[in-house]
């Protein structure tokens, strides 16, 4: 197997992190860009490029998931988000109560769940919501 086929195969493996629907539309052109940018003879994706694909792929997946949540069973997802957030806060209190202060790292995760619950709540109320606008473009 030659270098470019090896490299392409590895890029495609990384692109699997992107949501299926996004990949169906963009995988071919992204592979073209990645291969165009790769110097002759390169066999493996560079670490920085891999990390960039992983972060952006996961970000896209998160965004896709948000839209999905708003459309399919939003009330169920609202409950899941609220309960997850509350459970994490309770867990934080318990951990801190036992002197495990690292439990505080769970607070932002709980807040994220509440934030999502708020968004879904707005969608249920019927004033739209944007399905998640990205604060992150650099990665």
């Amino acid at each position, binding site marked *: 197997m030659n270098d470019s086929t090896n490299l392409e195969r590895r890029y495609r493996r990384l692109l699997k992190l992107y949501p299926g629907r996004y990949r169906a539309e963009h995988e071919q052109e992204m592979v073209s860009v990645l291969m165009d940018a790769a110097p002759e003879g390169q066999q493996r994706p560079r670490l920085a490029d891999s990390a*960039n694909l992983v972060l*952006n792929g996961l970000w896209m997946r998160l965004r896709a998931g948000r839209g999905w949540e708003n459309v399919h069973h939003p009330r169920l997802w609202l409950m899941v988000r609220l309960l997850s957030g509350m459970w994490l806060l309770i867990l934080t209190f318990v951990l801190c109560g036992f002197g495990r202060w690292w439990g505080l790292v769970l607070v932002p995760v709980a807040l994220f769940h509440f934030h999502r619950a708020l968004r879904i709540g707005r969608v249920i109320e019927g004033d739209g919501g944007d399905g998640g606008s990205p604060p992150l473009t650099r990665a």
Partner: protein
Amino acid sequence: MSKPRAMQEATFLILTALAAGPQHGYGIISDVEQISKRRVRMRAGTLYTALDRLREDGLIQVDREEVVDSRLRRYYRLTPEGGDRLADEAARLRANARVAMSRLDLSDGVAKA
């Protein structure tokens, strides 16, 4: 509509790259590097996340597709709204830069006096 926020540099550079005409992904990356005098080297993941958002916001759209050496190339172009946003942002940056320049000249004058 609420007042648009200041544009991220990556977004500004992508829109600037497309201002001269439609380009495909690698063309945009190369152009951005050239416009920024090799300071910004955009990676594919970053580029496509940005393109996705710009399409969603209606600032760019797909122009055409070509297959070259069995590789798909999708060309993007600015929409009229994208052109307007870029023009607004360029004007904002120029106004800020002008104030900075004039103040620097002034402080030079004071220093020399």
